[in-house]
């Protein structure tokens, strides 16, 4: 067990899998010699050499297309798309090619590949380098969607993603890169499709993902300390496959459900989850499900503006307080 940052944990996970499995090949823009523009692949070129860690041209189509060709012929490529915004440049592969190959070929083609990409706001990079697009990927049948919220999960989920026989899109979050926690050494596998209940409370259930998880936890602490409201916090961890049973159980536990999403409002993943919960746990709900999201605007660049749109711990506290008051069922002590 060592204290690692999220970025160090990603590098450690890649190194672990590359040592374990010769079929794993890592490539992307600035991935090898530079160690990644966010240093998530630092040291890997030195450790594994240019055959296994490769710098690519700025050619997102070629990067994902090549990953697909490698995966269907016996390798386990890990391709990096530097910013998740750039998925739009190679969306053909994410939407048309990779997720449909197995189905269209009636099971002849298997694509064990991982697309790693840096998602989310927090770096003041403006509208084309700050988006949260996990909901784009979730809308496509045939690709698994993973978004870890802490360094330990970053390792555990990346190991699972690389070993998975299906294509996985792995959203790393730039706001979390420096966050540290204890990360188990060696084998540490977090299976895809298992949400984590990080805090248990009987009043409200907060369902969050990636960078929204630490904010939800912080909000839960404030709610408890300042308002006497005890929150359950669930980290969804993987949108596909979705651990629906845990979400339903935790929704029913309190009857007051809040989703916290960094994606813009319309068609965010919380809408799907809210829809399922009201359909399957309606009688357990004490008030409408509330979605706390980034408003439906592009992400502005400068710090005050970016902070104003992306859900914050204080914002989550305020939204939850408002909703409880509006339904006057608040269990305020």
């Amino acid at each position, binding site marked *: 067990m060592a204290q690692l940052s999220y970025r160090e944990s990603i590098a450690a996970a890649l190194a672990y899998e590359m040592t374990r499995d010769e079929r794993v090949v890592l490539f992307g823009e600035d991935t090898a010699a530079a160690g990644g523009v966010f240093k998530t692949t630092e040291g890997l070129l030195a450790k594994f050499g240019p055959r296994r860690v490769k710098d690519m041209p700025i050619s997102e189509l*070629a990067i994902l297309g090549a*990953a697909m060709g490698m995966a269907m012929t016996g390798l386990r490529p890990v391709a990096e798309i530097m910013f998740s915004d750039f998925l739009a440049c190679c969306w053909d592969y994410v939407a048309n*090619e990779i997720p449909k190959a*197995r*189905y*269209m070929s009636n*099971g002849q*083609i298997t694509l064990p590949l991982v697309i790693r990409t840096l998602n989310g706001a927090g770096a003041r990079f403006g509208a084309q380098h700050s988006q949260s697009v996990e909901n784009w990927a979730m809308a496509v049948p045939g690709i698994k969607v993973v978004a870890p919220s802490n360094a330990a999960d970053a390792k555990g989920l990346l190991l699972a993603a690389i070993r998975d026989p299906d294509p996985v899109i792995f959203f790393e979050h730039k706001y979390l890169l420096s966050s540290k926690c204890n990360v188990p050494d060696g084998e540490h596998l977090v299976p895809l499709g298992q949400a984590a209940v990080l805090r248990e409370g009987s009043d409200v259930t907060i369902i969050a993902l990636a960078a929204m998880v630490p904010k939800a936890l912080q909000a839960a602490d404030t709610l408890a300390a300042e308002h006497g409201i005890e929150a359950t916090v669930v980290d969804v961890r993987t949108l596909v496959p979705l651990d629906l049973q845990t979400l339903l159980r935790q929704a029913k536990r309190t009857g007051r459900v809040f989703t916290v999403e960094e994606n813009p409002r319309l068609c965010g993943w919380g809408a799907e989850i809210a829809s399922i919960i009201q359909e399957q746990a309606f009688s357990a709900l004490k008030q409408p499900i509330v979605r706390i999201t980034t408003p439906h605007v592009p992400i502005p660049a400068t710090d005050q503006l970016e902070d104003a749109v992306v859900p914050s711990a204080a914002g989550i506290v305020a939204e939850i307080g408002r909703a409880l008051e509006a339904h006057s069922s608040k269990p305020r002590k």
Partner: protein
Amino acid sequence: MQQVKERQTAVSQATDIPEPARLPIYRSMVDIRQLLRRANDLFLQNLVKGTMHLGLGQEAVAVGFAAGMNKDDYSFCTYRGHHHALARGASMLSVLGELMGRQCGLMSGKGGSMHLTSVEHGLMGSYAIVGSHLPIAAGAAWSAQYRGTTQVAVAFFGDGAANIGAFHETLNLAAVMKLPVIFVCENNLYMEYTPIATVTAVKHPAADRAGGYGLEKIVIDGNNIEVIYRTAGEAIAKARAGGGPSLIECMTYRQGGHSRADPAKYRPPEELAEWLKRDPIVRYRTRLIGLGVKEQALKAIEAESAAKVDQATEAAKASPAPSLESTMTDVWADGGSGWHN
């Protein structure tokens, strides 16, 4: 026809295709021609639904390259891929069955006409997004290089694909990495309904871009099976030996429209007539007779082919429709389609 001797492709010598390969090559072209014609008839009878893009007239490219490939080499082709599937050895029944949406089809009706895939024959997919398969082929070639095999990947594409970004990204990457991949442009003069010359800055949409990636400009007669066979053999040998990629533009002609929706009335009649005179199968037939093959033997092949097509047609018609349960299978490697617990 444009001058296609930009790379000294002097008229083939009789030694180009070894004697034992000649009749199998002729047979393969005839099989494809007859099966595609049958597919067209079945479409008109509403037994093939949706759309269909026939490679009638372009058979020589498929057969010439397939003849130079090993069983474990990879082919990647486009929605106009039936001729390649057959050339790589997929059965008439499995191809026709897929076009007709039957259980016996290559993908049991889940892929359809534009997505023929037969991994056991090295046919790693037919791709319906123009140019999308080019980087995928490069990836398969990278895989072969990484695994230390001598496999090659061959990507077939139309002239229209040479104007799409994936083409340029892929050529650059393949050249930089010296990947064992051969890019084969079937220049049939039309980008769907539009003459390629009217939308392309250079005369040869693929080959004229080769220099931009440090590759040799190669333009050949895509209706001359002997030229194709020799060119394919050279490119494949070069790729196997670690010499890197080749880009080959084959001048050919789509004898029908873009798809079954297109009667191709935009083609000048004299152009069509001229190209029909250069039909690759008719030409090779004449050539074989010139090489001393008895016409009787060729007629026998043609008759056998017709019988096989009839047989495949009847078998495909008799094959059941795929089960409705199959709609929910094979999204994931576990065979299912579930996305939650």
